[in-house]
């Protein structure tokens, strides 16, 4: 557990594309019954969207809330596993689009579904070390699932951005502490040049997701005297609905503290954006002085757990830009053929 002094969130933004496919529709194609489905529906990026465009959408919302001059942003780090370019950073695209260039640093990070919190922590370190004044941390993905694979029901698209800087009177929230838990556990991976990831089925449960999330969360709670009753909202990475609820059960957390940040059933697993969008959803409704515990999970494997305390600035700033709920509720259902087209699984002949 590491205590953090005076690093705050000044703006935040979530973006979810408009298209939704129901898990039932995917199940219809592959003969999977509705009782077997991990989520109700998932968000799908449009034909002209990718992780970079969605990162820009989220960054613009965060910037509107922060209300700072984008030229003061010294670094933009984007966590993703669906980079549109294998070589060429998304960070530069975002920086250019929001008017932050020339920024000092722009980089992409990859750690399966936890690259978003990695971005937060690396930006946080740069600010704390006095290298930059403000930094933008983004998680964005248009996650891949092989047609017919279990991942196809959940692999979704979305982005979330956080503008971090030193503490000030109008800040939205303060990051109080964090703890990381990383081991070499290959439960899910995608090799270079492969189009779809592979996963080791149930191995992704107990020895991977649960071990790492609980490792990070317990070390955060135990080593600095936080208890689950000090926390008002919990956001755990949500590859499906069941896993985060199971963590809550193990830690004896009231489901009500999980509900505001539990989005998997409505948008699926947005990978690097997943737990960050949960945090966005909570910030959209939390009150000053409430505490949020965020724990990401990335296959391979690791978890970052952060304790965030909401500040007075939230009351004014959250209404400066569209809330996540508006994106989630503004939806167009598509069938499986349209889905294949949007995912570029079928191409015009």
């Amino acid at each position, binding site marked *: 557990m590491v205590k953090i002094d005076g690093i705050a969130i000044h703006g935040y933004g979530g973006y979810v594309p408009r298209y939704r496919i129901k898990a039932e529709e995917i199940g219809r194609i592959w003969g*999977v019954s509705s009782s077997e489905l991990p989520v109700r529906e998932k968000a799908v990026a449009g034909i002209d969207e990718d992780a970079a465009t969605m990162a820009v959408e989220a960054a613009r919302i965060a910037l509107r809330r922060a209300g700072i001059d984008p030229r003061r942003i010294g670094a933009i780090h984007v966590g993703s596993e669906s980079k549109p370019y294998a070589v060429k950073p998304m960070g530069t695209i975002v920086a250019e689009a929001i008017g932050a260039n020339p920024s000092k640093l722009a980089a992409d990070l990859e750690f399966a579904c936890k690259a978003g919190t990695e971005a937060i922590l690396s930006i946080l370190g740069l600010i704390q070390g006095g290298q930059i004044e403000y930094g933008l941390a983004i998680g964005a993905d248009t996650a891949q699932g092989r047609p017919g694979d279990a991942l196809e029901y959940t692999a979704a698209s979305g982005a979330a951005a956080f503008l971090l800087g030193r503490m000030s009177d109008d800040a939205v929230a303060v990051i109080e502490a964090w703890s990381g838990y990383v081991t070499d556990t290959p439960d899910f991976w995608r090799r270079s040049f492969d189009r779809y990831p592979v996963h080791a089925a*149930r*191995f992704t449960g107990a*020895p991977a997701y649960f071990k790492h999330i609980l490792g990070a969360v317990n070390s955060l709670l135990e080593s600095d005297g936080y208890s689950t009753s000090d926390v008002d909202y919990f956001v755990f990475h949500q590859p499906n609905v069941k896993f985060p609820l199971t963590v809550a059960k193990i830690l004896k957390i009231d489901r009500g503290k999980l509900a505001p940040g539990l989005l998997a059933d409505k948008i699926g697993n947005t990978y690097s954006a997943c737990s960050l969008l949960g945090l966005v959803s909570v910030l959209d409704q939390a009150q000053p002085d409430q505490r949020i515990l965020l724990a990401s999970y990335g296959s391979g494997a690791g978890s970052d757990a952060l304790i965030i305390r909401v500040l007075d600035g939230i009351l004014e700033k959250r209404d400066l830009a569209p809330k996540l709920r508006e994106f989630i509720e503004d939806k167009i259902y598509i069938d499986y053929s349209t889905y294949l087209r949007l995912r570029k699984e079928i191409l015009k002949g």
Partner: protein
Amino acid sequence: MGRVFVAGAGFTKVAEHWDKSLEQLMAEAAVKAVDGAGISSVNSIYVGNALSEFLQEQSNLGAIIAEESGLVGAPAFRVEAAEASGAAALYAGFCEVASGMADAVLVVGGEKLSDGLAEEVSSGLMMGGRAWYEGFIGAEFYSLNALLYKLYARRFGDEGIPMFPVISHEHADGVSHAQYPFKLSLEKVLSSPFLAEPLRRLEVSGIGDGAAAVILVGEDLAAKLKSPKAQLYVSAATDYLSPFEREDPLRFQSVALAVSQVLDRAGVDRGEISFIELHDATSIMAALCLESSGFSPPGNAGKLAMKGEFELSGSLPCNTFGGLKARGHPLGATAIYQVAESYLQLTERAGRNQLDSPRAGLALSIGGVGAEAYASLLKRA
């Protein structure tokens, strides 16, 4: 032929053992069995395993288990007969003791299925069928079972067949070494999705890892050892690999032959059998096991199951610790679990699952879809 006794048994929990290797699991069971028998060495080791070359890329398990169990020096053999590999190893070990060549042998069965994805395990299971005209055309273990199930339903109706998983789970409830130690309702079985129609997901055993071991000893050593003992008889038979090459696909001739022969060898009538450990890899296999071995008239196993005949309090308790469905089915280990559990029953150490003074128990192990059957009979010593 000398008499042979089971004088010790050991096993691991059947589970997804992410943190243990196949060798570690087998050594754990082996050491428990050696300790249980109160001996410090064995003359030979027989290892039952079906898929280690395929899932672990590891052969030569005999010498490996000797090393891992601290028994280096003893000759060691790996025996393979698909899902019945454990029973085949037991048969081989029995022969060495019965012949007088060995006083004590260790028989250990083990399998670690979680090293493969479900698809790989399914391919591995199908290696027990004929690759050229079953496996290569896409047939697999459950689809073959589904065909038998359909044929059975057409001839006899399928009443009561889905009761077999319910019975197994009832018996596994609270069993510490069982993979699924909880009850399962008939409604749940019937509402589970089809794996291959009419076979439902909850009518088949799951994928798990585990190892089990027994110590077999001859009469002279048995007299010296203080550990509880049960006398062992074995028999085995083969059949055409594909059930559809046989005169009647619904009669497992291998089971019929092996069971009649082992009853003869033990001098026991069917009526004297106190319990049976069935090869319930699927619900339909459990029924075919009972009918082919003459413990139920053809077409009646499901009806008897509905009447409660196979429950712990019934006239012929089956799968007293949960069978393949609920205790678990780590292929090469399964038959040794059956024999170890029978040994616990006959030596009155079955805890909550203890039957009332059982005299003799029968364990049936099947490779493929009846390609070979092993009948192991344990009698109170």
